[in-house]
């Protein structure tokens, strides 16, 4: 943590190695020493977990007034006058002894250990330990290594029992599936027999293991630390945007590790993100463009593929061109494609979402919040969206920490239980389609006396009391709790809450990586880059773009319907797979069948791109530079670490090439130039620049962290000038000790004078700047009346599915759990079926024969399924036009 955070007022003065150090009140000695530049060796202590004092490596001589004594510096708080010696003979003797003890049974198989070269045990033994072993006895032997999950291997001989992994599993992830087993010399970390460490966060234990006891199977024997080249980037596994380091060797990505940044991931990653490193090197990566021939898709030359694509686009009228997708793209790619589609081709039929998200006015127009604000101590958080553990796993970790340690009250409204239900003070499971009605009861002025949306009056009233008692604004994680329920239901609920509590803030919980960036860059119907609507930004963009679409276009549903009706000549899929992801499989099928020419821009072939006429091979993550935007609107840098396969090109290059062939010039030749253009034309992103980003390792919140709009800046400067005059007056009267402050503001004042003129000039040009999009309150949704013979469908997603990231990794692919239809134990008994029996699941669309299971997390009268799994394509059941999907479940006996 930065030193400036230490407030001198609350500080505690301690003496470390003869130097005075100001520690924060309650700060652990090990942290205070590190902040002051004295690193105390440690194994068990981890700054994101509670200390346990297991390893004794951080013993230092501490004198708290009763004479010096060895104490573990990770377990004692700094107290006034404490004298600490971290380099005395006694301390060194203790460190030497502890290391000898830790090495007693350690096999010293460093030459064949993945950790060798970056191992704290190795490094600290070199720095603080005995040069030679006195051990002549036989060491303890155990089977090496044993898999404790599909992804993690455990070598118990190497383990020093520091308790890091077990503490992580219990305290951070909440999956206490590994534990110390046995006692004394026989103690080991292990799982329960046949119950693997199947945590979504298991990879973190590998990263924090201070020895080579826990290793990751995807990285096993892949590289040596001294061969690795490392770059920081941002994970593109989901929209949380965890900061990672990418390690490569021989121009191949080898692994990702979590980087600790305060506002987002605290060093943690989910396993999907961590092991998505395998996706980069996946078999089947497209290395050259493909074109459809009589024999199917065949490799083609770039010039042929691009000319064919450009010819198809040139031949189509703007309204018959559509673009779906964009969440895989960097901000720069997205801007380039937005400029090509809207500014060159003139079509507004562009949508980065696949009918599984929220309208763009909700994502960009609702009062927003950040992860830090969401998790701030003592607040109230309402989950009105998907299961964060399944869709945004590191957000789940942050929320879990907030509830467990920071007194955050969590309420949950979800049609089925989620991974975070056990942490919620109130967990309401409304019938699909009736969330709005439930929200009206929750925000009403008095208690209800009847059941609403299938939720009992008692539960509603208890939750209502919690909401009413909220200290400060209610912070909402907003998204799609179930994809078989119309988005209007969620919007209705959000509108009601915002009406009742205008200070409510929202965090949009969209799943795909850079979906926020794609929407920011205008990849949505009716939008232009910089969070402005087509109408508001028309004049602004008319000045810098060749053209601007005449009227708002179609969203993904509209595009697919138009295509099905034969009205789409060219459909561009920007890394999108509508067949898998649109929660209405039939519509997606009809849409793709009806589009005359499909151009897919992707890194791998998927079900939809297999239908394409032209496939343009795109460079993927770690293969190109750029920026990304997470769900908070935080822009961070993505780095190139390896070269793309074959001749695959960055998406923005493809947009630029196509523009050239269409006789236009997008006007940029590098991602940096695109970023500069975004920073100068996208109204919400004005002022964003490479320099600014380089100085912000945690990323930049747009627009909060950007230079303030000129008018406000000028006003503030004027105020500052007045203040400074006042300060000058007070300085005269003040004592010598306070003059420093006065002098500083005086300097600031002089700078103002020199820049004022230039800024006024800028302010004049900024006068026509369009205002950003605002949330359009949604209408009341009325769900169809309850039919007691039917089940309402709840369709959710799991972390591991048939998506590209999971399926292109050797180690993740097998983790997708598959699906079955799950009903409440009550309904299960009522149907008179046995677990796993095949039942007929009939919706107005189709009938699927699926196995059935009882699930206590499912409410009566609902049936839960998981989307995008291999065994059953449940999106066939759904009709996107319906508010809810009603099912009949019948036994087949």
């Amino acid at each position, binding site marked *: 943590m930065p030193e400036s955070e230490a407030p001198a007022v609350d500080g505690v003065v301690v003496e470390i190695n003869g130097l005075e150090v100001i520690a924060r009140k309650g700060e652990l000695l090990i942290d205070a020493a590190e902040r002051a530049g004295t690193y105390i060796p440690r194994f068990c202590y981890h700054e994101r977990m509670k200390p346990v004092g297991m390893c004794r490596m951080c013993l230092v001589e501490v004198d708290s007034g009763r004479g010096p004594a060895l104490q573990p510096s990770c377990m004692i708080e700094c107290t006034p006058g404490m004298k600490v010696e971290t380099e005395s003979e006694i301390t060194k003797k203790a460190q030497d002894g502890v290391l000898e003890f830790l090495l007693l049974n350690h096999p010293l198989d460093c030459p064949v250990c993945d950790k060798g070269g970056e191992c704290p045990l190795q490094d600290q033994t070199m720095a603080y330990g005995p040069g030679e072993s006195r051990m002549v006895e036989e060491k303890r032997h155990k089977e090496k290594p044993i898999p404790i999950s599909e992804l993690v291997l455990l070598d118990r001989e190497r383990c020093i029992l520091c308790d890091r992994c077990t503490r992580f599993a219990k305290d951070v992830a909440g999956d206490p599936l590994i*534990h110390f*087993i*046995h*006692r004394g010399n026989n103690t080991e970390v292990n799982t*329960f027999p046949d119950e693997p460490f199947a945590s979504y966060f298991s990879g973190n234990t590998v990263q924090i293991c201070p020895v080579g006891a826990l290793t990751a199977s995807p990285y096993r024997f892949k590289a040596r630390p001294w061969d690795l080249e490392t770059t920081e980037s941002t994970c593109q596994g989901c929209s949380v945007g965890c900061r990672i380091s990418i390690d490569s060797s021989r121009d191949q990505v080898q692994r990702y590790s979590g980087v600790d940044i305060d506002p987002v991931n605290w060093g943690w990653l989910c396993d999907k993100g961590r092991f998505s490193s395998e996706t980069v090197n996946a078999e089947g990566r497209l290395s050259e463009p493909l074109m459809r021939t009589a024999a199917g898709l065949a490799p083609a030359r770039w010039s042929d593929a691009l000319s064919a694509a450009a010819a198809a686009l040139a031949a189509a009228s703007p309204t018959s061109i559509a673009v779906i997708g964009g969440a895989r793209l960097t901000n720069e790619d997205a801007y380039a494609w937005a400029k090509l589609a809207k500014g060159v081709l003139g079509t507004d039929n562009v949508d980065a979402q696949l009918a599984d998200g929220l309208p763009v006015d909700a994502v960009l127009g609702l009062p927003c919040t950040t992860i830090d604000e969401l998790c701030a101590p003592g607040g109230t958080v309402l989950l009105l969206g998907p299961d964060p553990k399944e869709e945004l796993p590191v957000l789940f970790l942050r929320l879990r920490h907030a509830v467990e340690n920071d007194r955050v009250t969590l309420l949950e409204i979800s049609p089925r239980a989620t991974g975070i239900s056990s942490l919620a003070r109130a967990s309401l499971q409304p019938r699909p389609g009736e969330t709005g009605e439930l929200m009206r009861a929750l925000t009403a002025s008095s208690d209800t006396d009847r059941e609403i949306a299938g939720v009992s009056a008692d539960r509603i009233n208890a939750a209502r009391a919690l909401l009413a008692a909220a200290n400060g604004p209610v912070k909402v994680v907003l998204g799609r709790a179930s994809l078989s329920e119309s988005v209007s239901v969620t919007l209705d609920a959000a509108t009601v809450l915002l009406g009742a509590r205008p200070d409510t803030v929202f965090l949009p919980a969209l799943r795909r990586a850079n979906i926020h960036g794609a929407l920011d860059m205008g990849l949505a119907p009716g939008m232009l880059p910089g969070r402005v609507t087509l109408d508001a930004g028309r004049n602004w963009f008319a000045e810098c773009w060749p053209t601007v679409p005449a009227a708002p276009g179609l969203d993904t549903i509209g595009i697919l319907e138009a295509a099905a009706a034969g009205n789409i000549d060219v459909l561009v899929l920007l890394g999108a797979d509508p067949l898998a992801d649109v929660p209405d499989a039939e519509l997606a099928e009809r849409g793709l069948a009806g589009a005359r020419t499909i151009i897919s821009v992707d890194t791998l072939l998927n079900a939809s791109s297999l239908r394409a006429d032209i496939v343009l091979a795109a460079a993927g993550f770690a293969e190109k530079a750029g920026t990304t935007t997470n769900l908070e609107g935080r822009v961070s840098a993505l780095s190139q670490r390896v070269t793309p396969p074959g001749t695959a090109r960055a998406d923005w290059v493809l947009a630029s090439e196509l523009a050239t062939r269409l006789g236009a010039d997008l006007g940029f030749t590098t991602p940096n130039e695109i970023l500069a253009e975004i920073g100068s034309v996208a109204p919400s992103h004005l002022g964003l620049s490479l320099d600014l980003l380089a100085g912000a390792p945690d990323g930049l919140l747009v627009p909060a962290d950007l230079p303030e709009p000129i008018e406000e800046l000028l006003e503030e400067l004027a105020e500052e000038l007045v203040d400074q005059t006042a300060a000058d007056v007070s300085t005269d009267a003040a004592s010598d000790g306070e003059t420093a402050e006065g002098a500083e503001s005086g300097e600031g004042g002089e700078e103002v004078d020199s820049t004022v003129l230039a800024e006024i000039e800028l302010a004049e040009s900024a006068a026509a700047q369009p205002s950003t999009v605002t949330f359009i309150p949604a209408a009341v949704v009325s769900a169809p009346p309850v039919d007691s013979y039917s089940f309402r469908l709840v369709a959710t997603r799991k972390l591991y599915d048939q998506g590209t990231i999971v399926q292109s990794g050797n180690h993740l692919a097998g983790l997708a759990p598959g699906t079955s239809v799950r009903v409440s134990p009550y309904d299960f008994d009522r149907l008179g079926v046995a677990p796993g029996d095949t039942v007929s699941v009939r919706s107005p669309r189709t009938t699927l024969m699926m196995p059935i299971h009882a699930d206590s997390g499912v409410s009566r009268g609902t049936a839960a399924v998981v989307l995008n799994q291999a065994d059953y394509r449940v999106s066939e059941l759904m009709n996107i036009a319906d508010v809810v999907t009603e099912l009949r479940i019948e036994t087949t006996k």
Partner: protein
Amino acid sequence: MARLSAENTEIALEIIGRYPRSKSALIPLLHLAQEQDGYVTDEAMAHIADLVGVSAAEVLGTASFYEMFKFEPVGRYMVNICTNISCQLMGGEELLEHAEHTLGIRPGQTTDDGLFTIEDVECIAACTEAPCLQVNYRYFHKITNGEFDQLIAELRSGSRTDIPAHGTLAKVRQRIPADRRAGVITPEDTAHPVWLASSQEAQS
């Protein structure tokens, strides 16, 4: 031999009800499981994990800390022979060797009829009575080879009924009626221990 039987599940729930936090009932429930099957089965640990709301790994972690919980089947009679210093001086090792010959097994093994398991144990705190041993944790003092053989013969023939099967905690199960329970108030919420009031009540 698997999960807790229906009857024992009921007892388990009663035991859980005695504690403000169900996790506190872990050790008593492990004893219950050992009483049921003679050792603690994996299935019973998984069942206990469900009952008290922790993971099975946590149950195993707790249980395996304790020497007297067994995770493999053992004989009906667990014979612990002390070979620590006092007993060793007084012939404990010879007694163990004799026991091995008599029963035909090594320490840690169980006789084919499933009746006896021998263990070579550290001091069992009866040094004045060395050499000593325990059968299912009941003491036998100053044992000679002849006395050992006689003890085994009596246990084998069933003529000794004072030693219940391994795992049995007591001949009479403790029952705490609901009105005599300490109450399920968490320690944080209590100013005085609940038993204090009831014990004062009993004295007056």
